[in-house]
């Protein structure tokens, strides 16, 4: 996982491979710890993500709440079809702005 600041307000996370019970809490804590105070928008590049489970969804929601408290948003970039399917199944595509490639 790679966390970079795109500009003064936007942080981009790339290289997420799996977001599952085994790593969900750790990923959440690492991203939160790396977020500069000025960041209001978080872009999660999901193009490399092959698998997501309900614990991973919890991480996404948790980050969403963090950014919302800063009046910002979490955007999910380029999720694969199976990941998008899980977001739609759990209706979380209503919460996140999803940006396709």
């Amino acid at each position, binding site marked *: 996982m790679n966390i970079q600041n795109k500009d003064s307000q936007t942080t981009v996370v790339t290289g997420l491979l799996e977001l599952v019970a085994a790593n969900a809490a750790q990923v959440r804590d690492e991203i939160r710890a790396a977020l500069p105070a000025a960041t209001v928008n978080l872009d999660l590049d999901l193009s490399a993500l092959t*698998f997501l*489970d309900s614990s991973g*969804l919890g991480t996404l929601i948790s980050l969403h709440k963090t950014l919302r408290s800063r009046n910002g948003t979490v955007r999910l970039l380029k999720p694969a079809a199976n990941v998008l399917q899980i977001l739609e199944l759990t209706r979380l595509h209503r919460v996140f702005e999803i940006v396709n490639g």
Partner: protein
Amino acid sequence: MRREFRTSLRLESACEFPAVRAATLTVREWLAEKNLPEADLGGWELALVEAVNNAVKYADDKARQLPVTIDVSCGECDVEVRITDHTAGFDWPDEVDLPDMDSESGRGLFLIKSLTDHVSYLRHPGENVMVLRRARPAAASEILPNVSHLQNRLAEAETALTDMTAELASSYESLVALFRYSSELGAHTDLKDFSQRLLKDLMQIAEADCAVLRLVSRDGKKLETLLLLPGEEKNLLPPVALTDAFASVEVGAAHNRQDIWFGPEEPLGKTDPLREVMPVGLGICHAFHVANQLVGTATLGRRLADRPFTAAQVNLLHTFVDFLAIQIVNARLLDERTAARVTRRELQIAADIQRSLLPAKIPACLPFEISAVCQSALQVGGDFYDLIPASEGALLLVIADVMGKGVPAALFAAVLRSTIRSMPQLFDQPGELLAAANRTLFPDLSRVDMFVTAQIAYLDPHRQKIISASAGHCPLLVWQPGTTDATALGESGFPLGIEPLTRYTQTETVLPANAAALLYTDGLSETRNAAGEMLSEKNLLRFLAQTAAQTGEAQAGKNFLLERLADYSGHAPLADDQTLILIRHRL
């Protein structure tokens, strides 16, 4: 009857998350060998992960020492998985629903249930078994594994192709639409027409049955309806104030900056205005912003609640509406710039008219000396003055203030000037002159709800007198030699344009040698100092007395008076026109 051919697999996994993940991948590979299609493999992988994670989640220290067992059985028609754990287990809920959107957990069972055809959870002392079953999509023949494998691959490829085509088509449609709109924008299309076509296309592509587009009102306090589709009965949807976030989903979406979905589970509020016009099964409301400023909201609805909008359709909504928002803001900026240009041009015209009305030079009226000025404030007002030579060396002094600004005020000033100049026989009777001017101007002034205040003074050099009358105007101020204070003279009648038949009293005053008199507009007496206090007539009288005491020539007196006024205002730019005529008896 042919006996069903089943194969099975048993796995034991340590009771911890990483081991569980490895075990589920093994099951997935095994099922792939059984020629399950890709979509089913993904579904099984997720259902299994959720089921086994549950076992790990509920394990205490003792249970964590014992393995979780996964039994998979694959037949021609279905796949069954049994997960056996040794934890305390949990109570299977009556209803497996999704938690609140904000909840960070509680979606596992929902996923399991959604991804399988059958779930049962059997609790026993010391162990629990979760049984998951799901039909296989097509009856693949085990006898001809290669053919069935190929068939599956073909079916998958077809599905993928169909999906890709659909996605491409929708992207292509939206791209084509956006390009078309962009080219149309150059052609001065009406914003509403443009929005309507855009919204109709969006409805079609996003498969919506109705749509509402609202824009923030100019004052920024409410959402007003621009479009209600289908049909054009936008009057059915009154504006909604932006103050109460619970008043409607639209205001809620604007406040929270988040899309709001409504449907059977989250129905529209009882007082939500959308209820009346959107008898829909479900819908989504998106608030759109430009440069952090709310521009409006767009709501799409579907008649039936069985099919929510997909992520791709939500994306389309965002793309279309955000594009529209930029066009709306651009159009508004253009309007404002054009309006500002028109206003500037209008003010220029008004200033030109006003200047053209002023006398080019001051006629002589010895022994009186006259000095006059009309200083325009930034916003051109309707002040003007006139000095008209009358018979026998007399002079008619006119000072007026047309209510209002700009071209209309300047035009009425021009009309008043001509009207007065056309009645020289009444010059020595200013009261009659005002009454006659009022009769002439009343129909035009009252039609546009305007009025004019004016003071007319007849300066008689032979009898050394001034005869004045006022139509709602500031009084004539006179300073007599040998006195310390100046006084305000005369009664005032109605301004011109208020009453069709009204009379004006005239006042006659002797202006002996060295006396001074002042005609002025309220721009003088209403000059404000830094503290915002108005000068008032009383202080203006004092300024006049000082002027008379310290200056001789009328010209010098005028300059002295203007300096006093500028000192009072702290040399701030004029807030209103300042017009004055100063008369000085110089013999």
